[in-house]
């Protein structure tokens, strides 16, 4: 059986980080947001599946921080709420 591909290592996939509960709360507080206002990412997303394997169980309601290179600002950070599916 071929080893499963770690999509996070691909150069076109941006960095994904799983936030701890404390960090999540801080992010929401800093941005003055509620969880439902965040963009979503599915549990079944290949990047989330990799996060699940390396950073401990990912559950619905957790927040993933995504850092990508940006043409306009160099680096841009965004947050996504993990949802089912």
């Amino acid at each position, binding site marked *: 059986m071929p080893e499963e591909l770690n999509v996070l290592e691909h150069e076109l996939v941006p960095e994904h980080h799983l936030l701890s509960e404390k960090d999540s709360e801080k992010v929401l507080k800093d941005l003055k947001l509620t969880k*439902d206002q965040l*963009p979503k990412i599915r549990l079944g997303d290949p990047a989330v599946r990799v996060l699940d394997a390396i950073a401990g169980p990912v559950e619905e309601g957790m927040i993933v921080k995504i850092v990508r290179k*940006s043409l306009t600002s*160099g680096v*841009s950070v965004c947050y996504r709420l993990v949802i089912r*599916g």
Partner: protein
Amino acid sequence: MMVTGVTKRISAIKFAHLSPDEIRKMSATKIITADTYDDDGFPIDMGLMDPHLGVIEPGLRCKTCGKKVDECPGHFGHIDLAMPVIHVGYVKEIKRLLQSTCRSCGRLLLTGEQAEEYRKQRDKMEEFGADSTDTGNVAKETARDAAARTTCPHCSTVQLKITLDKPTTFREEGHKLTPKEVRERLERIPDTDMISLGMDPTVSRPEWMVLTALPVPPVTVRPSITLDSGDRSEDDVTHKLVDVLRINQRLRENRDAGAPQLIVEDLWELLQYHVTTYFDNQTSGIPPARHRSGRPLKTLVQRLKGKEGRFRSNLSGKRVNFSARTVISPDPMLSINEVGVPVEAARELTVPIHVTERNLDKAKEMCKRGPIPPGPDYQPGVNYVIRSDGRRIKVTDKNAETVSETIEPGYVVERHLMDGDIVLFNRQPSLHRMSIMAHEVRVMPYKTFRFNLCVCPPYNADFDGDEMNLHVLQSEEARAEAKVLMRVQEHILSPRMGAPVIGAIHDHITGSFLLTFKDSKFTREETLKIIEKIGEVKLPKPKVVGGVDYWTGKQLFGLILPQGLHMTFKASICQKCQTCLKEKCEHDGFVVIRHGRLITGTIDEKALGAFKGKIVDKLARDYGPDIARHFIDRATKLAIGAIMIRGFTTGIDDEDIPDQAKREIDDAMTQARMKVEEHVQAYRRGELEQMPGRSLEETLEVEIMKVLGKARDTAGQIAGRHLGLENSAVIMARSGARGSMLNLSQMAGAIGQQAVRGERLSRGYWNRTLPHFQKGDLGSEARGFVRNCYKSGLTPTEYFFHSMGGREGLVDTAVRTSRSGYMQRRLINALEDLKVMPDGSVRNTAGTIIQFTYGEDGIDPMRSVGGDPVDVDDIILTVLGDQGELIAKVQEKGALSYGIQDRDLMETPTDEGGETEQEEPEFESGGAGEEQ
């Protein structure tokens, strides 16, 4: 949730069928007779014009609700059909249901487990928030699966094949099913199975798709018109309902009288036809019902469908008052903020003045002038006066004086448009926000709207018959908002690319070129003619040549620049010399502005032009819209002044070249043809050296294209030697006013190879392009090379080839515009309700985040410099001034210090120097009857 102020929110919309019971329950009256009016002209009870259905005649009252015209919404009636008929709108669904259910027990042709499986799948999808399209697909799949079965799993009945004979006849193995039979079968389908088939049995039953009662729309929906002759003309829908009623009546009589089955069936089919065409008179497979005049009737579907239908023409598109539309024409004497409005339009368009103690006298005076004030000068009059109680009084010449006396605070006076009023001006297609801008009115004689030419680019307008719309704002709030946000001067910079969209075009650029090129001089008289329109200025010291005072064009141009302006850039006429001589450029292509004075360089497209104008850009960005507008207005006038002093024209003789040059071009062409022939011979002999990665044929094509491309360039160069800057066409091409040097070399030199899909022409006849070439001829003439120029004229074959190449371009543009229009509409639909919040995030109406920071860098592209947040070079120039070496040093270091990381991952931004125009066939200068 962050949502505030929402009092009601639609959570869902559900569509269902009307049951026959509901149709009867909501009916105000049953309609039984096809007659509409009696001999005295009164509507007949239980006829199609029954007064219970609503009122259309003023003064009468509705018999159902007792209200008058405009108050009564109208009420439905109904027709009880003698025999059931199929509803054409649902034949597809009926077919699916018949095919997927048992012909005897009516149950879904799936085993319990199978059905359960599909139901589960559906529930799961719904849980994940799938919409009706997704669940609908599951239902379709269920039906397809069930239809494949040949025996019923519940009662073991063998199923027969059901087909649909368009539009409404169902057959079972060829045997016809009557609508009654169809309805009976649909009735047998149990509710539980309906859920699997995608229908909610609590609101819709399948048998309702076979009609037993027909709703009759209120008379307000189908009003009759009284013609001048006194005759009544009925609406098409009424005509159709009359047909339905007549046949329904006959069918009932024949059936009750026990007429032969054949006759009843014929009538039944006729009823089906009428009901079908009542819904949709363009149903395929049956002839459309026609009016006595032979015109097809407009029935229900025709009212809704298409461009002229209810949706696109009445709901998405609305007509408004206080608007005007007419042809546009240019006026360089107007400010870019202004619009010239014809007197006739200004007298029709009005602004409401709310009368108070302070403007009472003025209002009275205006009203006294009446609707057509006398006098040679335009003065606003008044068309209507609205009293405090809301009554509108039309002001006429006769009553103007008396009405004027009655005006008191609280009245509203609708006065004519006058200079300075803020109006919205628009040209379709309204693709971006600059398509509707606010202008200040200037009332003028003649019949066109006029505006400054610099405003053509944002509207994409020209004056070959274009028309534009004008809307007069009716409230103070609207006017204030328009003035702050929508005024033309606020849109000089485009949010599309962070560069100006408003700027000089065509003759403006030519004019400023003629004004400033090299050491152009103007006498006192000429100078005064040029600057008389730009307002008060202090003339600089004249240059004295031979005892006569002269002003250079550069001096005059400096008059309109702000005092402290410093700029350095290359003009359009810059020849891109190997080593730029900067200030000493022999083409005068290096623009240097210091302290608001033009030191060297020519002012052309790069300085003033729309999209490229650096001065306009800098002024709008650093000095604000007021200064930028003022500059553009005055630059317009200077340029027009200069071009009028010198005079400017172009004609076909601008492409004249000496006979010697023509012979040279001819020689070059002949040589190229021979060289191509050599290549072909080498290929035939098998001596052609194959290029890596290409077949032999491809190699040959590449070589030939190279030779022919070079030949055209040579021709262009030879012609170009005789096309100097004394030539008007060249001035326009070099300064960026209009046309390109390529256009000129095609006119004077040679047109060159014609191509379709990037290849030499090859299609048409067997192995050749035209029948009078040898089969397999690979020579230059046979494959679409045009050695002539536009001026010398093309040979018939060349002309044909040129048309082939030209056609491809036309088709491409046609396809591109339609497709990009559709893409744009979809993008706008998806993005229209997103907005940037005060915290810099982009959110939708529900407050959810779309982008954490707008554009990821939070930069407003309109205020960016070509997309970048800051113009580093400009800052360096401002800080270091004229210390040339220092600037070079900083720029060298700069690449390291302020380069943002990992740019190379992204597409490299196209360098702004490489704006060599693509060869683009232009078919703009067609004749009359051109599109506007």
